[in-house]
């Protein structure tokens, strides 16, 4: 049975990048996500909020089939990326994860140089034909991630030598380097100080001109700042989704109101 989430507004400005219908996730026998219907619009930041254990990260991981690597995890329903079913047997999950990049809560640069961190993806996916092209890709990715000026003179130094905020931007640059269409972020700023957080948020705003972003965040203030649409999850259900401004000034569902005003967690 599908929960019909309350959609506070209808946005026709952007085409739809991802269409999720009736998505259920089971860990063994336990149903963790109960039939989620959600549209993600292109070139927008969509934020997923909700208390711990509500299913938002589980849902996020469906979008690039990261749940495939979890033992005993089963996904039902359909997820279409630009109209193509990402769970069809014809889809190569590795190629999917090139189109759909992911950034995690704890920055996780490879134990390689800054240069190689970025170059790794394009190399193994065979996206570049020579060293010059690779250099260009590395520079472009680091520039888009707002990191180029800070690291251009030390590209051979290890990525792990950067500060937390820089490492996270390195991970974003790494995700961008393989030309994804969709970027998933799972609490990307939780481990960062306020300045580093602000830089990543600014980066998100710039990136959405060319990419679509879905972010899971514990901070409602962050969701309010960075996203155009917000989806509220609770106990494995998608309760309400709508324009961010509407969700935070006048949500339709009592549970949404209760959560965002701090009346229950």
């Amino acid at each position, binding site marked *: 049975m599908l929960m019909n989430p309350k959609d506070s507004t209808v946005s026709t400005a952007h085409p739809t990048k991802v269409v999720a219908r009736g998505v259920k996730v089971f860990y063994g026998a336990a149903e963790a996500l109960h039939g989620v219907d959600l549209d993600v619009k292109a070139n927008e930041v969509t934020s997923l909020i909700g208390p711990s254990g509500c299913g938002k990260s589980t849902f996020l991981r469906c979008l690039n089939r990261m749940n495939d690597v979890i033992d005993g995890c089963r996904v039902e329903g359909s997820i279409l990326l630009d109209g193509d079913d990402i769970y069809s047997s014809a889809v190569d999950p590795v190629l999917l994860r090139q189109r759909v990049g992911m950034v995690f809560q704890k920055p996780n640069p490879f134990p390689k140089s800054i240069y190689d961190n970025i170059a790794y993806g394009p190399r193994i996916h065979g996206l570049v034909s020579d060293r010059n092209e690779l250099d260009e890709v590395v520079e472009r990715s680091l520039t888009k991630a707002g990191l180029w000026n800070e690291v251009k003179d030390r590209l051979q130094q290890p990525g792990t030598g950067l500060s937390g905020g820089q490492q996270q931007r390195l991970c974003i640059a790494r995700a961008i380097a393989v030309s994804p269409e969709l970027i998933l972020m799972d609490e990307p700023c939780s481990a960062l100080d306020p300045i580093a957080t602000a830089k990543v948020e600014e980066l998100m705003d710039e990136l959405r001109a060319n990419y679509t972003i879905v972010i899971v965040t514990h901070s409602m203030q962050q969701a309010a700042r960075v996203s155009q649409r917000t989806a509220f999850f609770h106990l494995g259900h998608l309760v309400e989704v709508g324009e961010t401004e509407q969700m935070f*000034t*006048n949500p339709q569902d009592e549970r949404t109101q209760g959560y965002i005003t*701090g009346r229950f967690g």
Partner: protein
Amino acid sequence: MSQQHIVASYDAELSRLNQLIAEMGGLAESQLATAVDALSRRDSKLAANVVAQDSRVDALENEVDNFAVRLLALRQPMASDLRNIVGSIRIAADLERIADYAANVAKRTIALNQNAPVEPARAIPRMSRLVAAMIKDVLDAYVDRDVAKAIDVWGRDIEVDDAYSSLFRELLTYMMEDPRNITVCTHLLFIAKNIERIGDHITNIAETIHFAVSGQRLVQARPKTDETPFAAHPGDAPAGAAESKDD
């Protein structure tokens, strides 16, 4: 929302904000009542008292403003909390204006008492009773978060406008009958206008309550029947609509 915040001090602070507004409202209510009482009984001492008390209302408005800004900065309120806090700022401003108008009525009463009483002055207490009932009801609506009651008060302002229009005509006629009446009638005109403006501010409060509670704005234009901007000659029916855009 009847549910409590997880952080109890947040609820305590929101309660305090409500209390401040209720206190301001009660003061504004009693200022108007006392001012009109002073007018009816031609009591200049009582009127002077009203004028002196106005500073208490101003002080409360400052307190509400400061407290609301503090809540905005420290609590990052969302949804209903945000609307209530912003609503309190607006309501406090309207209540301060209402109390100001009451003090103005009191000032003019002192001037009036230097002259002999006149007939149209008797219409003023009737007009102010309408407004006094509106203040009481809108404050009740605020405390109870009662949107229906707020809308009802919002609609009643038309009666105040009607009373003002009719008093306007009466005063013009009186002035034309005898130029010696002009000073007194002019004061009464201002007094009547002040009371009419109080009614308008009460409707602002009603609109704010509606938005704070429901999250929607009252979109339809409030019916206004103050025809006085269109009155050409006191004896004529005003040329122009029964509904007018206010000055």
